């Protein structure tokens, strides 16, 4: 249906003498806006969800009033509040970089959605470098964080930026190595190919070690407890975004939750069979079930992340470094070697 619509658009534009490039760009922008809408809604849901889950873990209720049923509108109210908040840029800040930082972080978070395969055909662009794209772009978030921390002119932020840099150094290499066995098994970096390769068996079964390594590193990637070291509230107040207020802060916040979704989605794609899953009720279309299973699995992983956050204490920077370099990396390399040997032996 969508293809037909697009086709008609092209014919129309041809009749009006509009170059197809413009139409193409227009389409891309429309897709981007749709994704932004999805991100916004998903972030609002995630924030509410996290608050509810944490509340129930802690033997309380969480938001209960706004919007009636279990405070479902709490996030919307918070969003409106953040828009109405005064924007304060401290005098000592480097204004340009200060303003650029949330853009870098948010634009990166948004761009990562390009390769998320929600269902067959429901992927913005199935880049042939899929996983590599994710790995290379996701580190860009750290650049934004360092920019924010450094430009604030605040010592807590500077320390947060420094910690963030130290953190990326320690989790990035294990993250990169832990995905390698999946690529070896799939023989491709393309997201759809990886899902196709899991037709017989989800990669989490042969690659449970890789999954755990990846998930741990991914937690660090999203700055979630126990790895929320750059924004450690009790130590650095709020770390790199101490000086950010109102809507600027909201942008960081959105990006953070958007990244949670991305990371979980990538983990689902690489290890949990992507959109694969049984059609529970036969008469609904196959596509529906694909999206259903993909989102269910993704939100399950997000739930695990939230669960961990409200159970564990925070690690220290040097402990994270030790974990990254001296535990995760050797394990990831070992796993890589074992996978190679087994693959060669099995032919």
């Amino acid at each position: 249906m969508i293809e037909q619509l697009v086709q008609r658009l092209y014919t129309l534009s041809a009749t009006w003498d509009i170059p197809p490039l413009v139409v193409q760009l227009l389409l891309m922008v429309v897709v981007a806006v749709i994704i932004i809408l999805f991100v916004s809604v998903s972030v609002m849901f995630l924030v509410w969800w996290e608050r509810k889950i944490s509340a129930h873990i802690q033997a309380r209720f969480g938001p209960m009033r706004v919007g009636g049923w279990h405070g479902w509108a709490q996030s919307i109210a918070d969003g409106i509040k953040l828009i109405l908040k005064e924007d304060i840029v401290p005098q000592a800040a480097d204004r340009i970089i200060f303003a650029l930082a949330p853009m870098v972080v948010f634009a990166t978070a948004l761009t990562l959605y390009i390769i998320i395969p929600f269902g067959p055909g429901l992927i913005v662009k199935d880049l042939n470098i899929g996983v590599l794209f994710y790995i290379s772009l996701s580190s860009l978030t750290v650049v934004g964080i360092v920019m924010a921390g450094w430009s604030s002119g605040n010592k807590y932020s500077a320390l947060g930026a420094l910690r963030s840099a130290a953190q990326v150094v320690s989790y990035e290499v294990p993250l990169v190595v832990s995905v390698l066995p999946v690529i070896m098994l799939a023989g491709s970096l393309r997201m759809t190919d990886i899902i196709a390769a899991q037709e017989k068996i989800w990669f989490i079964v042969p690659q449970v070690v890789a999954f755990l390594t990846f998930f741990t590193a991914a937690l660090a990637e999203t700055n979630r407890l126990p790895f929320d070291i750059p924004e450690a509230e009790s130590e650095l107040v709020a770390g790199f975004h101490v000086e950010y207020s109102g809507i600027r802060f909201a942008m960081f916040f959105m990006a953070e939750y958007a990244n949670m979704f991305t990371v979980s989605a990538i983990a689902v794609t690489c290890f949990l069979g992507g959109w694969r899953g049984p059609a529970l009720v036969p008469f609904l279309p196959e596509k529906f079930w694909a999206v259903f299973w993909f989102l269910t699995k993704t939100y399950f992983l997000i739930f695990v992340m939230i669960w961990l956050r409200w159970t564990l204490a925070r690690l220290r920077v040097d402990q994270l470094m030790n974990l990254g370099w001296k535990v995760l990396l050797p394990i990831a390399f070992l796993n890589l070697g074992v996978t190679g040997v087994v693959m060669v032996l099995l032919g």
Partner: protein
Amino acid sequence: MAETVQAPVEERTKDRMEEMYVNMGPQHPSTHGVLRLLLKLDGEVVLECTPYIGYLHRCHEKIGENRTYTQVIPYTDRLDYLASMYNNWGYVLAVERLFGGDIKIPERAEYIRLILGELQRIASHLIWLGTFGLDLGNFTIFMYCFREREMILDLFESVSGQRLNYSFYRIGGVALDLPDSFVSDCKAFLEWFKPRLPEYDAITTDNIIWQKRTQGLGILPKDIALSCAASGPMLRASGIKWDLRREDPYGIYNRFEFDIPVGENGDVWDRFWVRRREMEESVKIVEQALEQLPPGEVMGKVPKKLAPPPGDLYSRVESPRGELGFYLVSDGSTKPYRYKVRSPAFVNLSTLPSIAPGHLVADMVAILGSIDIVLGEVDR
């Protein structure tokens, strides 16, 4: 050529040191009130830590000298507002001692004092554990601890009508008798509370991150602990078995069976673990006391005009935070001539500059949390 390049670089960096001075507090999430620490950092390593206190100073002692002995009691609530019962107790005990044995406290009052005091110790340790969890980034233990503390506050409310500043102890006894339901309520609470401790353990003690974040940090060796006169769990964590409930018994503590938990290394972990076990011991004491609770009066015979004979005296009790001392000088009038509070948190906090250097900022927060300060008491 080299020199010409060198000069501007020197110029640019001459007033920029590698050390950074950071104010931690007074407005900081983990200074437990309004404490200011001036940290000298090299990267993230603390080179020097200077506490600045007094933000909450109310000149408590001056106020005390201008009030009668009875009127001071409500002010003592505001010292360590997380353990008001114990402050009351420490103060009234000091005044009673100043009378030199003229005031006899009825048995029942002694038991009530002890039960409430030990419940207060549990409540105080719970707050400590919760906020310490916050310092380490574990939010859930905070809520759990507050849930149980709330129950203790309910008990206190049923006794005194207050939830925080009880002013319940009187010179010569306690203000009121326990309500009828208290004994059963308190037993029910203890039954609820005992299985909660293993539940806390599951997310603290048994958690490897928790262990890694506390063990081997902020070590306070025995000799420095003594020289700095650290007291309470802080001193016991350093391996010195010194608990005034045992060593200088007051009230009726010598009638009960309880252990005094002692640490080995004097690190943050030991301080945590000592307090954690002290809660168990307090439960034991309260249980025994509830069994023995005698009937009778709750106020002893007290002269109408409360004027102790001239003299001075230093009286101490073991509050949840350590040795709470009151130095009283009487000139024979109804007001204390000199009223000095030796607050445990004040003295314990003074150990911080000697144990903080060399740690990371993150550990600094853990160490500060492990000291268990209440600024109301530090600043007085």
